[in-house]
């Protein structure tokens, strides 16, 4: 008979799992870490290739040459921006109309839940300006979007200048099969969110905006341009979007192919590709690039203006021009040619990009790791949780034993933990006025410190709630609770990893060791310390420090702490403004789960 249907063999298997439970869990954990780090090793990765036939191997000859015109337009834009103190709407409308586009504007306003100290805004009011280049012969069913942000100060003037020059050049061509929308958005992501919501007739974030007067069909792809200097040394590609969503890999392949063709240096995560994969430095370089991508994806922010397009199934990427300390510099005309080539290739598309991967990690621009290769790393961590579920002493029948603790006993810690989670989610924003009244802090600090306070208050829960419970201080009680909590954590992390692998993996790496090994019989002080140090909040703190290390801007502890607080405030703002799901996930699900294990630790 089979392995699992034969009672003898089943007993032998369970005995094996029982005896070697801890060693197997350790091996699985180490294997997961090693597997993850090994993903960046070049022989284990695949070379990127263009999967979409319509964007095939033929290139066209790019003829864009109006670099000078782009720069003069940039200067004009800058001058008008200073004069208007914001977006120079009339000048932009006139400039786009002079180039033969159909121009429309959209005004929007939004009151943030609390002031954003990083960008120094609270009541945001702005206007988006966009011009539509109609395809000469095609029906108006599909569109491409090219956007440049209108940023305060000296940034991104050249991007708008290049946008206008490209619009003029494109207007003279007759081979466009899709409409092209040239969008200049104000207040970066907020303006972009307003425009996208207006375009798709949705309102998911409570923004107020005027409806869009002009429309161009369903958007197939979008490119966002950030250019702040007249000459550049390299182009950086930004792919990570909201909630860790990534565009189709074909877009990155397209960018890379054109960079190769025009001889432009291209980077990802700001790092240039290296050829020496068999040396230690080469491997660490690739591993650092991949770790940066993982961290950026895990935090669920949109790292460029393109990130908000992904929610609407529009493949989008941001291209940022960087002026570094290199000898060889490129002018705006080259970037214009690159964009012309990319848009012309996107013009050839007949369907949305779907042939290549949607889930991948990039250790460099020319190598990628697909979901089939990186998911086992998470799978090994999830297996640990499931192995612990089958830990002995958790006899199957006690759960239904009426004399033992019922479901109700377990329910109490669960409910209280989740109520704390709800408090962590709702109270910081709602109680900010009260906090500002009583304490000498600004609103942002009030929100963040309230969140930290509620988080810490949760640590005191077990002592208080156990007074409410009656007659449960038995061995069976905590085992049932641990069973529930382990299953809950496994399901939670599994679902998270499917949507946002990086977030799931980062949480699993810190949560799985402590939760798998947590029992009330361990030394209290030491395990309490371990639990706190590996709690979700500290995970975020470690990620902040690692991120700063990886971008070669290491911070001291004090600065790290301030960064940590700003990360929390940004997380809450992202959730309120754009619908990012990281903060609700952490507050409403991960934190209560961790609290349940904290309850188990202090079970008495």
């Amino acid at each position: 008979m089979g392995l699992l249907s034969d009672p003898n063999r089943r007993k032998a298997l369970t005995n094996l799992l029982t005896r070697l439970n801890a060693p197997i869990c350790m091996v699985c954990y180490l294997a997961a870490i090693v597997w993850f780090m090994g993903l960046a090793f070049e022989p284990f990765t695949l070379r990127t290739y263009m999967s979409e036939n319509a964007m095939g191997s033929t290139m066209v000859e790019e003829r864009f040459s109006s670099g000078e015109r782009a720069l003069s337009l940039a200067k004009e834009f800058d001058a008008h921006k200073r004069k208007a103190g914001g977006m120079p709407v009339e000048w932009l409308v006139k400039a786009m109309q002079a180039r033969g586009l159909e121009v429309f504007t959209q005004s929007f306003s939004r009151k943030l839940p609390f002031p954003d100290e990083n960008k120094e805004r609270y009541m945001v009011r702005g206007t988006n300006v966009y011009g539509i280049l109609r395809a000469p012969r095609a029906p108006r069913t599909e569109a491409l979007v090219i956007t440049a942000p209108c940023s305060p100060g000296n940034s991104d003037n050249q991007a708008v200048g290049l946008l206008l020059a490209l619009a003029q050049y494109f207007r003279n061509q007759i081979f466009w099969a899709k409409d092209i929308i040239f969008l200049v958005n104000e207040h970066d992501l907020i303006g972009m969110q307003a425009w996208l919501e207006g375009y798709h007739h949705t309102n998911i974030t409570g923004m107020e905006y005027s409806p869009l007067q002009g429309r161009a069909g369903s958007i197939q792809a979008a490119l966002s341009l950030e250019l702040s200097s007249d000459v550049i040394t390299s182009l950086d590609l930004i792919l990570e979007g909201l909630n860790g969503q990534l565009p189709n890999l074909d877009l990155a392949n397209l960018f890379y192919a054109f960079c190769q063709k025009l001889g432009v240096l291209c980077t990802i995560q700001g790092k240039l590709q290296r050829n020496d994969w068999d040396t230690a430095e080469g491997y660490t370089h690739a591993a650092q690039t991949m770790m940066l991508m993982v961290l950026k994806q895990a935090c669920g922010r949109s790292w460029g203006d393109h990130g908000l397009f992904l929610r609407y199934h529009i493949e989008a990427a941001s291209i940022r021009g960087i002026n570094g300390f290199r000898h060889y510099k490129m002018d705006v005309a080259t970037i214009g040619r690159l964009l012309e080539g990319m848009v012309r290739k996107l013009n050839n598309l007949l369907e949305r990009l779907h042939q290549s991967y949607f889930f991948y990690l990039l250790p460099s621009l020319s190598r990628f790791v697909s979901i089939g290769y990186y998911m086992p790393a998470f799978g090994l961590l999830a297996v640990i949780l499931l192995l612990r579920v089958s830990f002995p002493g958790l006899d199957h029948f006690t759960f239904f034993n009426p004399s033992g603790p019922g479901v109700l006993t377990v329910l109490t810690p669960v409910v209280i933990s989740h109520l704390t989670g709800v408090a962590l989610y709702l109270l910081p924003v709602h109680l900010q006025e009260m906090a500002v009244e009583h304490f000498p802090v600004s609103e942002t600090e009030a929100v963040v410190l309230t969140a930290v306070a509620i988080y810490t208050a949760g640590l005191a829960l077990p002592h208080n709630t156990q007074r409410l419970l009656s007659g449960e201080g038995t061995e069976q009680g905590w085992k049932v609770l641990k069973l529930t909590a382990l299953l809950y954590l496994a399901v939670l992390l599994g679902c998270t990893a499917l949507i946002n692998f990086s977030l799931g993996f980062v949480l699993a790496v810190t949560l799985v060791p402590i939760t798998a090994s947590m029992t009330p019989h361990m030394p209290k002080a030491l395990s309490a310390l371990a639990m706190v140090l590996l709690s979700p909040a500290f995970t975020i703190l470690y990620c902040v420090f690692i991120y700063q290390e990886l971008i070669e801007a290491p911070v001291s502890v004090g600065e790290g702490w301030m960064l940590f607080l700003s990360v929390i405030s940004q997380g809450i703002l992202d959730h309120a403004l754009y619908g990012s799901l990281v903060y609700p996930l952490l507050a409403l699900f991960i934190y209560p789960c961790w609290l349940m294990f904290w309850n188990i630790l202090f079970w008495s």
Partner: protein
Amino acid sequence: MAFSLDTNCGLLNHNIIGPIYCTSTIFPPDILITQFWFNYRHVANTLSVYRSVKRLGIPDSHIVLMLADDMACNYRNPKPATVFSHKNMEFNVYGDDVEVDYRGYEVTVENFLTPRSKRLLSDDRSNILIYLTGQTGNSHGGNGFLKFQDSEEISNMELADAFEQMWQKRRYNELLFIIDTCQGASMYERFYSPNLMALASSQVGEDSLSHQPDLAIGVHLMDKYTFYLLEFLEEVHPASQANMNDLVSVCAHRVSVSPGHHTDLFQRNPGSVLITDFFGSVRKVEITKDTINLTSSVKSGSGDMQIESLTYVDQLPVAEIIHQKPKQKDWHPPDGFILGLWTLILLVFFQTYGIKHLKHIF
């Protein structure tokens, strides 16, 4: 699916050839009426061969041209109303006098095999040329079938059966089948009718390669095999004596994949078959200054012509065909065997678990 070429019988002149061109290129399953712009070269291939054949004398009434895409009027064509087959846009093969019989969505397997209108009016003295270009299966795989419009296929068996039906109804004298796709040789593997010659641009497992990209239009303009084929055809004029062996060897060494040819079914020696038998319309004209008396019997003075007319190939060498090439059929196990097998299974079941379970079933 009925696939008989049931055409009206028309009296045609000696040696007039009716070629069929088919371009079966993929169509997107999209709602939009956009085409696969990157398959520009298939249309350019077909139009170039069409032009060569017209140049060699075949009239439009004897040509069926099927183009599945409209490249000339595609929104992405920087030079609308033109299709170029040579880079630097030297020669517009679309022109003013192209007569497309089936265009766009009309190019289907059914219209190819059983056309409702614009039929091929051929009889048993016609030589037919069929030129197919397009995609077999996916771009990297699949052999034995040719895609029509991305939603239909014609398999090599269907083609072979269609040609057999044509043969049975005496619709052709000799047939030349040229296919320029990846793994093209798989399409002629199953032919079994006589007097068929087939040429393909690549063997099974090989891909057919494109030839020239044009940087202004942004697509490849022609496939390698067709390019060399046309180069060869440019040198052919109506009085040319080039034969099939020259055609077969035109591409053998210059491209990286190996074109295939299948001449087993052909009754005549390929070396003795003129290119113009298929590609051109050649009238045999004998100029004489003598008067020929047509009322008397043609024994004297026209012995040559009589002997010529007697050198026709045997139309229905039935005996040879029947004994040499058996019809291929898929083997099914006999019905009795299946019945016995199930009875055995039921008996074993009831024996193991007891006859008392029978009452639960009946």
